[in-house]
């Protein structure tokens, strides 16, 4: 482990966790502007977290240890992902601990724990949310894996840092398979992060919610950790998309001078991604829950098509 690697790693771990709520605030602000509303402050998500951490936790009488453990596990999973995905530099010592397949596995662990926790109290909405979350996850997870397989066939590696280095280095080559993979990835991002058209992060309309139904019984610090973890998840998903499909500007191993540039590039790209997300959410309507499997299955098939195209064109 080199010194620069260790510093990169630490900077990134702290930065992702700290900046994640800001991205959520930015998306919310962009959406408000697009909808001709007065935007809340960019720092609003931080205030919400602070408020929640100050409150007393209210716990249902029949909640088991699993219910109390789950927020911490989910937070831990997301922080682990934050250490693996190259945001600023590809020189990350942690990244070797989990390649893209393991990365999908971490997301799955978080999903399973949040769903189990939702079923713990035994409320109608909790189990409903768990069912929907697992259904969306069961279809989105393979789609995400296939997107990663597309990338790994090009770069001959399943390690995310190697993928990003390969794609960042190669001269501007048009990979048709990547185009399909990118579209599929965006669809998975929407589904996995509970965004419109799959789920509405702003809703509390009982019959349509997914993520909100899962966390309905949570309060105070538990809720704060879960919401923070969700923010990190959105941030990390955007970072994965940027690193894989627009990797230019990321710092290479041992390149100190490139770091400030990388920070600027990352911030700019994330801002654009967040604004794009707000546009997507404004122009599309939430779909019926029964249509969601079709949506996610489309992502799966697009990614598969990319995989086949890779063989057709690259052979």
């Amino acid at each position: 482990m080199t010194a620069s690697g260790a510093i990169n790693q630490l900077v990134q771990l702290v930065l992702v966790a700290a900046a994640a709520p800001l991205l959520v605030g930015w998306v919310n602000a962009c959406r408000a502007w697009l909808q001709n509303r007065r935007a809340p402050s960019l720092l609003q998500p931080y205030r919400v977290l602070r408020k929640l951490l100050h409150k007393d936790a209210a716990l249902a009488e029949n909640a088991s240890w699993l219910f109390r453990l789950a927020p911490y596990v989910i937070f831990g999973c997301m922080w682990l992902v934050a250490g693996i995905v190259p945001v600023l530099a590809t020189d990350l010592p942690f990244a070797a601990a989990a390649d893209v397949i393991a990365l999908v596995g971490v997301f799955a662990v978080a999903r399973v724990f949040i769903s189990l926790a939702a079923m713990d109290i035994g409320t109608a909405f909790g189990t409903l949310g768990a069912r929907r979350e697992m259904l969306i996850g069961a279809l989105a997870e393979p789609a995400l894996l296939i997107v990663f397989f597309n990338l790994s066939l090009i770069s001959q590696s399943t390690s995310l840092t190697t993928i990003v280095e390969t794609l960042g280095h190669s001269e501007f080559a048009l990979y048709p398979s990547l185009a399909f993979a990118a579209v599929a990835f965006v669809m998975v991002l929407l589904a996995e992060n509970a965004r419109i058209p799959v789920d509405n992060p702003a809703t509390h309309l009982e019959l349509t919610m997914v993520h909100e139904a899962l966390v309905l019984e949570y309060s105070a610090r538990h809720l704060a950790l879960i919401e923070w973890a969700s923010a990190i998840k959105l941030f990390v998903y955007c970072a994965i998309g940027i690193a894989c499909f627009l990797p230019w500007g990321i710092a290479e191993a041992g390149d100190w001078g490139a770091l400030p540039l990388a920070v600027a590039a990352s911030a700019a790209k994330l801002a654009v991604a967040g604004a794009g997300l707000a546009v997507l959410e404004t122009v599309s309507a939430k779909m019926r829950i029964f249509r969601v499997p079709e949506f996610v299955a489309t992502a799966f098939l697009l990614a598969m098509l990319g995989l086949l195209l890779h063989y057709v064109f690259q052979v």
Partner: protein
Amino acid sequence: MPAATSSPLGLVIGIALFWLVLGILGLLLPGRPQAPARWLYCLGAAAAAALAVAGLFAIGRPQEAMVLPLGLPDLPFHVRLDALSAFFLMLLGAAAAGISCYAAGYFASGTGGFSGLTCLQYHVFLASMVLVLVADDAYLFMVAWEAMALASYFLVTTEHHDPGIRKAGFIYLLMAHVGAIAILLCFGVLHEGHGDYTFDAMRQAQPTVGWATAAFLLALFGFGAKAGIVPLHVWLPQAHPAAPSPVSALLSGVMLKTAIYGMFRVTYDLLPSIQWEWGLLTLVLAVLTTLFGVLFALMQHDLKRLLAYHSVENIGIILIGFGLSLIYFGTGHPVLAVLGLLAALYHTLNHAIFKALLFLGAGAVLHGAGLRDLGRMGGLIRAMPYTALFFLVGALAISALPPLNGFVSEWLTFQAALLSPALEHGVLRSIIPLVAAALALAGALTAMCFVKVFGVAFLGQARSREAERGREVGGWERLGMAWLATLCALLGLAPVWMIGVMDPVALELLDYSLAYSGISSHWLWLTPVAPERASYSPMIFFAVIVAVVLAAFGLVRALYHGRLRRTAPWDCGFPELNARMQDTAEGFAQPIRQIFAPLYRIESRHPDPFDRAPRYSSEVHDRFWDWIYMPIARATAFLSRLVGRIQVGRVAVYLVYSFLTILFLLAFVR
């Protein structure tokens, strides 16, 4: 046994004999006292642990052969212990140690109390599996194979008063024998008419590609019937739930693996060369098996039947690794073939451990609360905290979630599949990633299924009075489950060590191994091909999550507070919450049923609007019964009726038949 100390093979045979003695002692125990009976199973568990250790040490050692002074004149039993046998003996020992320990509590405290006959059958079953694994001639192999089938048949029909269980047992026996015939024919093809049925003679034989393919297909069919490859899986969801839970764990966890062993033995060891087309066939069947298994598992509400369908799925995953290995080997990529083989072996071991654990957990629920229908469970985590914890470990492991063991083998399988660009054959190259996609889908659906199982059975509110009154199982049961849960964690956290242990098996079967091909793994990082290509470190993975959990727990309390207040559930302000408002097992899987509706045959009865007592029922049936088994059954019945016509019931007529037969034989056979 003086030879035992010096030779692992002697020790292995000694353990098999010891199990037989334990079984006979169980039969002889006068008056069926509980305490000594319990110790029989405990001694069996200790012997199993010794077997696991013996297997572990024998894997890396040179092979060892022996001729037992048993069997027919001129047809003695040959036994041999090589790396492949040793690996499967280790698997058998590791799983059986936990299961026997559990059985010590389960059988002694169960309904009807201790049964000497069950004790005998149980230990004969274990001993016959050992003999299957060390047999070095077709004769002993078939004898042990049949002993295994019969012992398990009697165990499956332990509760033979129930006609459903008798029927399940019959189907099991039928499929076991159809498979056994194919295996026998396979050995017949392999020995090429020399009259020498030792495996050594079969290794020397040089069958043509056509005969080799015939032998492979027979082996695939015969062992596939035991392993539960689609469409030969039908006995599995019937027989496994019928048996007492420790026996289900043995059937699903260990006995299915003897079929995998047989496939590996015939394909890699006895057949002279490997054709990649075999791999393609295996791969297609494996993918069908995997997806079929998980999609039907999602539809079940009987816990043990659900687990049985997951066994079908996991056999598919094992065979995906096997098929990949055959394709790579057949096309001249032995290093990649090693990766596929190791993935298959690793998943074989993992499945033995976590499936045994899950069946034991299901048995604990059956004993502790008297329930096996998910629709009546709920909230068991409060009454049975230990069982819930162990079951959760098993559920996370089978769902292929890191850092537990199921993930490691699926990860290896994915890695093997992603190396397909090395192949020259264009179609083959592009089919294999589709296999990876199917595996990804199966993994995600498994996670959904186990969220359903754990959420419905252990979480939420109790759905019945039995679930409310459930109580934790005894110490022996808990110890057995704890052992298997620990193995799940260890196999997940130390894959590098385990792969090092398994490497000699690959060296023996393929003449290649990961160490041999110049790739060495760091103790912390699992890098099967090259560090830039892929790496996985469950230790760091686990350490980071635990560290963050602890740090977050401490920091939140240090910076803010840890105050907590218990209240009624919120549920959007709805006050009159009851257990019937939770999702049921059927409800949880309903979207999947809708999406994959064409695959199922669904019989549902809807109530009439004027019904006084409206009832709704919906049953999901296996289409393979309609497609394959019912036509065969009808054809058999038809043929039997035809043959029945010559049966007139008069002795004189039968004598004429005999006379004609003898005339025919005299005329045509010399």
